[in-house]
């Protein structure tokens, strides 16, 4: 049972696992693995709680309804699954600043949180602009051979590689 407590599994084992999982989500739920719509629904739910029912009339929330659906539950499950995995392997720890970030930019919590917030805004905005994320386009869409998903996935990495080189090559 050493595999159960191993900190890391081979990326190929994990990849095959996710591929097989996508078979099951299609066969049982008729749904692709995806995550980013959940954050848009959550934004709508929060907006609705603060500003009232008329928020649901916004064109975007007519398309992406602010409700708890299959994918919303999937994302909640992902938090639980990762927690269980980290707990079993002993990899769970509360950490404010990732080690690579700390080595380049120092271990200040404030700076890391502000940059993470800005990155998150770009990520959420970009994911909903593109209509999907690394899961919805990058894995589920590319395996359906969708042109929209291949273009998105390639651009995720082009943008990401450029920004990472600017951050770690020029700024750090």
């Amino acid at each position: 049972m050493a595999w159960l407590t191993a900190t890391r599994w081979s990326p190929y084992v994990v990849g095959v696992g996710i591929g097989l999982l996508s078979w099951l989500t299609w066969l049982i739920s008729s749904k692709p693995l995806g995550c980013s719509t959940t954050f848009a629904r959550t934004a709508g739910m929060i907006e609705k709680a603060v500003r009232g029912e008329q928020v649901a009339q916004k064109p975007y929330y007519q398309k992406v309804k602010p409700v708890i659906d299959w994918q919303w539950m999937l994302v909640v499950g992902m938090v639980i699954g990762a927690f269980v995995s980290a707990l079993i392997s002993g990899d769970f720890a509360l950490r404010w600043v990732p080690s690579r970030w700390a080595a380049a930019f120092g271990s200040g919590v404030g700076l890391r949180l502000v940059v993470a917030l800005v990155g998150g805004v770009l990520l959420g905005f970009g994911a909903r602009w593109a209509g999907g994320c690394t899961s919805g386009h990058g894995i589920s869409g590319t395996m359906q051979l969708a042109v929209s998903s291949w273009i998105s996935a390639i651009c995720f990495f082009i943008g990401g590689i450029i920004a990472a080189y600017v951050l770690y090559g020029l700024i750090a």
Partner: protein
Amino acid sequence: MDKGKKQLIWGLVFGIVFGFLLQRGGVTQYDVIVGQLLLEDFTVLKIMLTAVVVGAIGLHLFQRQGWVQLSPKAGSWGQNAIGGLIFGLGFAVLGYCPGTIAGAIGNGHLDATVGGLIGIILGSGLLAAAYPRLSAGVLKWGDFGDLTLPKLVKTNEWAVIVPLCALIVALLAALEVAGL
């Protein structure tokens, strides 16, 4: 139990498996994601491409059998290229993506929970606010609808899947040979 509720539970179960796999794969770690974008550590690409090979073969077999009805997303250059590049910037600056951040939260990474999660929800809300203007303009640039690679090159899906999977396997083998 009604069908809708049952599906919500399936969603939760599939999510638990997905999150477990991502955490064991190491992609709930900032260092692994940034390592990929700096082209030093290819874990992210290895996981994604392996999943695509297994998924593409299975899903298209199931579709042939009439067991599933795939739904490739429609898109446009304005939507997918520009949105993809903005996403990419966020991907590197945050160091997690919308799926791996859920895993990172479970893993105990507080920069994901306090900074990143709030940011993603905020960014999604901003897009919802900008949507009426974008949808009439930039999101329509170079619209190609729900085009797929087989339709693009006017061929049978297997004439795309077989060479594509061969190419992916060759690329992964090359990464291993190069020691990456």
